[in-house]
């Protein structure tokens, strides 16, 4: 997994609550058996005026000029500013894959849906929860100032504005450690393989019907 330490980038404000995973990456693109190739179809239904389909050349599709990511001032954005319950809906990891491939490294919102939140960490995409008032303030600033950038420092757990004001954010120790070092969860869990085996044996003794029914 890609590590995340410190990142400074252009902020794109997406001013909608409850942005769902069907919006982040529509269902037709989930037919892919790969982990890559989703970036051009991020927010596909908002971003383009026609209906997208997997495998097409996206470079000639008509863009929706009203959609925030299509505005010239937000080209190259890598920090997404969002509203409450971002990423609600399905468990598709294609959503963080698409955000990551588009170029986003961090998403800031007052709240996230649980599964999306969890999936993001597995892909080096940092979801940051700030209180609603702070998010509101960032929306105002990002919309008012062209080229508005934020600096996210994972080690220090801060988001810093161009004027120097900082917001602290919470993150689980385990997730922080994995993200800072780009660690693969599976490798870490397998370090505890003996504990898993010991648990499994006890579990099997107590509830044998949980084992070997499906062959």
């Amino acid at each position: 997994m890609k590590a995340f330490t410190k990142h400074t980038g252009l902020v794109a404000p997406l001013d909608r609550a409850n942005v769902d995973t069907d919006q982040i990456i529509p269902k037709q693109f989930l037919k892919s058996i790969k982990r890559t190739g989703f970036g051009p179809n991020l927010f596909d239904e908002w971003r383009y005026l026609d209906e997208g389909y997997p495998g097409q050349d996206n470079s000639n599709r008509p863009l929706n000029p009203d959609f925030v990511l299509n505005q010239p001032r937000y080209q190259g954005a890598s920090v997404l500013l969002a509203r409450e319950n971002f990423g609600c809906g399905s468990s598709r990891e294609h959503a963080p894959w698409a955000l990551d491939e588009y170029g986003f490294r961090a998403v800031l919102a007052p709240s996230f849906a649980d599964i999306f939140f969890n999936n993001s960490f597995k892909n080096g995409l940092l979801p940051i929860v700030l209180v609603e008032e702070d998010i509101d303030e960032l929306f105002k600033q990002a919309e008012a100032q062209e080229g508005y950038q934020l600096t996210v420092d994972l080690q220090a757990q801060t988001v810093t504005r161009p004027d120097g004001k900082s917001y602290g954010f919470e993150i689980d120790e385990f997730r922080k450690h994995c993200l800072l070092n780009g660690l693969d969860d599976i490798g870490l869990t397998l370090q505890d393989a003996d504990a898993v085996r010991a648990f499994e044996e006890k579990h099997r003794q107590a509830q044998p019907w949980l084992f070997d029914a499906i062959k």
Partner: protein
Amino acid sequence: MSAKTLYDKLWDSHLVKQRDDGSALLYIDRHLLHEVTSPQAFEGLRLAGRQPWRIDANLATPDHNVPTDNRAAGVAGIEDQVSKLQVTTLDDNCRDFGILEFKMTDRRQGIVHVVGPEQGATLPGMTIVCGDSHTATHGAFGALAHGIGTSEVEHVLATQCLVAKKMKNMLVKVEGELGFGVTAKDIVLAVIGKIGTAGGNGHAIEFAGSAIRSLSMEGRMTVCNMAIEAGARVGLVACDEKTIAYVKDRPYAPKGEDWDKAVAAWQDLVSDADARFDTVVELDAAQIKPQVSWGTSPEMVAAVDANVPDPQQQADAVKRSGYQRALQYMGLEANQPITSIALDRVFIGSCTNSRIEDLRAAAAVAKGRKVASTIKQAMVVPGSGLVKEQAEREGLDLIFKAAGFEWRDPGCSMCLAMNPDRLQPGEHCASTSNRNFEGRQGNGGRTHLVSPAMAAAAAIAGHFVDVREMLAEEATA
């Protein structure tokens, strides 16, 4: 020992290791797989040279991409080459890793959340995961079940564990008796309308109260299925006699002496009387009316006799603009009666409402009536091959066909338009599925979430009607 909730008990009984950093390793008993969220996980295993930890914990079936007609040809009958490759990839991965799969031509194939319980692969007291957010469905059995992402699918395959963090406990208590014509779907839509789509974030929701206990297992599955639409990854209902009766004699359920031991163990799958919940929400079942979603989020829901809300009445600016955007997308006017919404298509199916009881409820409305001439398509899609067979034994297919409904083969179908069943831009659909997100049922499509009985009634009338009135006419006729 302090009192525990059902969720606490399930968590504790599967805790392999509590780490110092606050994370935990949780043992997973059952892993369900389908074609959409697994290919990258299998690819990850291959790249790392890993094997599944425990083959017998896994069960797979294709559901999202499969067409719901002309199924005799199997995979070869999938016209969309991208879809076909995804289904073939599941077949290949299951074969290579030795995982049992109910393939497209297997009579046990169906929507993974219908198949698991039907086969007894879902048992009380289990931990169950699947790369699909509607895995919450299985919580109806007193099992800890939730959706996971593809990285976690790979993690569970490789380690039989999840790295997890304990959620908070929420109790949704629905007391009293449901009115005539009001169903499990209406309960859960009313709950989502009350607490919002983010209301359950960070929580495991236990549904309790006399109205929940009165529901059949099918009804409980419908309620737990949509816990995720209230933001909760986990929905739960305590285990009781109905749970045990449903599970008994299913193919993968314990037998003989194991059965007796299992039933004894399952008696404890209830929250202790004095268990503490972080959040408690109460609803009066008698006050719940048939529900219809009018917007683009499952919390945008109203009773059938209400009007579409007026965004101007919303004090919160973010909510107001969300309502405005939703009405624009849905092509609706503020304050128009829900019953004035005309439909183009009707979809009865999905992991929420495609079980036998759902089909019976829809058939009871359809019987002796005709789908309105203004409806372009009304389809009934059973949740599995076995549900289809049972419905046909009961003659439900004949009722549907006589009324003008299409009788299809099992799959996710129009719930998410990854297969040929979908809406055209601007079309309104009365749907028994779970999400009314923009484009969910097809680009530009307009979804209204309802119960199977309400969907059937809408098909007959051509617009939303109060199914209680339609059924009452019958009773007095």
